[in-house]
């Protein structure tokens, strides 16, 4: 159950969906279909099959909305429908995707390069070997250069699928940790580890943008 009660807007949206309102449905499509496709694609072998999954999920949503009790947010519930259908289809394709390949095989490794810290046996073992540089020339509020955004986008695209999805939902779309772990069927710990790892890599990708060496 999500911590936040359904806001008025969401109750209104649910009512309109129950009544078969086209605009209400299309507003959901605009907000959720890209995420639905990405989540489906994690479990099935092709984009075409992922599109079938999404269509099936919409049927599930349109039928299920009559009984939807709002115990999770609408978007969480919808993504969960997608991943359930996609997992079933993936199994039928005998493409059971190992969890490890979704989350990334580096998930147990520390997200910061161990070389940045003093090694065992030294007096300050585990502390920075060189103090990380300060970031300079940070963008003013709201003014992030297109090229900086492109760096972030590329960094996210190279993440293992589940890490990418967690950071997209949490930091790009602004979902709560509870929504994300329910939507993607992750434990709280897993959700956090994946997000932390994803953020550490995006931070790393941004580092050259804001440190002196890169600016001279």
């Amino acid at each position, binding site marked *: 159950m999500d911590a936040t009660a359904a806001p008025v807007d969401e109750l209104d949206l649910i009512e309109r969906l129950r009544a*078969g309102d*086209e605009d209400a*449905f*299309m507003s959901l*499509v*605009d*907000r959720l*279909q*890209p995420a639905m496709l990405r989540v489906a694609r994690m479990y099935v072998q092709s984009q075409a099959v992922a*599109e079938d999954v999404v*269509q099936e999920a*919409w*049927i599930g949503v*349109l039928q299920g909305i009559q009984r939807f009790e709002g115990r999770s947010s609408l978007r969480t519930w919808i993504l969960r429908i997608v991943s359930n259908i996609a997992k079933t289809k993936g199994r039928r394709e005998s493409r059971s995707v190992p969890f490890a390949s979704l989350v990334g095989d580096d998930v147990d490794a*520390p*997200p*910061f390069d*161990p070389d940045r*810290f003093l090694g065992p046996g030294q007096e300050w*073992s*585990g*502390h*920075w070997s060189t*103090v*990380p*540089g*300060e*970031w300079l020339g*940070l*963008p003013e509020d*709201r003014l*992030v250069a297109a090229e*900086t*955004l492109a760096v*972030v*986008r590329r960094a*996210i695209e190279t993440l293992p699928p589940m890490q990418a999805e967690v*950071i997209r939902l949490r*930091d*790009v*779309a*602004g979902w709560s*940790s509870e929504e994300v772990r329910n939507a993607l069927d992750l434990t*709280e710990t897993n959700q*956090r580890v994946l*997000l*932390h790892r994803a*953020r*550490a890599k*995006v*931070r790393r990708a*941004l*580092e050259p943008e*804001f440190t002196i060496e890169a600016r001279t």
Partner: protein
Amino acid sequence: MSEPDDDLTCREVVERFTEYLDGASTAGGRERIERHLAECLGCTRVLAQFRTTIEITGKLPEDPVPRDQREATRHFFLRWRETASGRS
């Protein structure tokens, strides 16, 4: 309570930033992180960089639905609505 052994290393502190920023640390855990940050320039910088990273990531536009895909979904919906109302 706070024995020197209890102190976190930089390596341990940076591992906890997402938990810390989510407000998911225990009270004791939070206190240990803050005690470390008060004395550590490197970790303070990296925490600020995490916040900047999150802020910049939040400025990425979400993917739009391609127009033809959007139309296909709309038609699918209209067909579904017709059949559903025919049934009830």
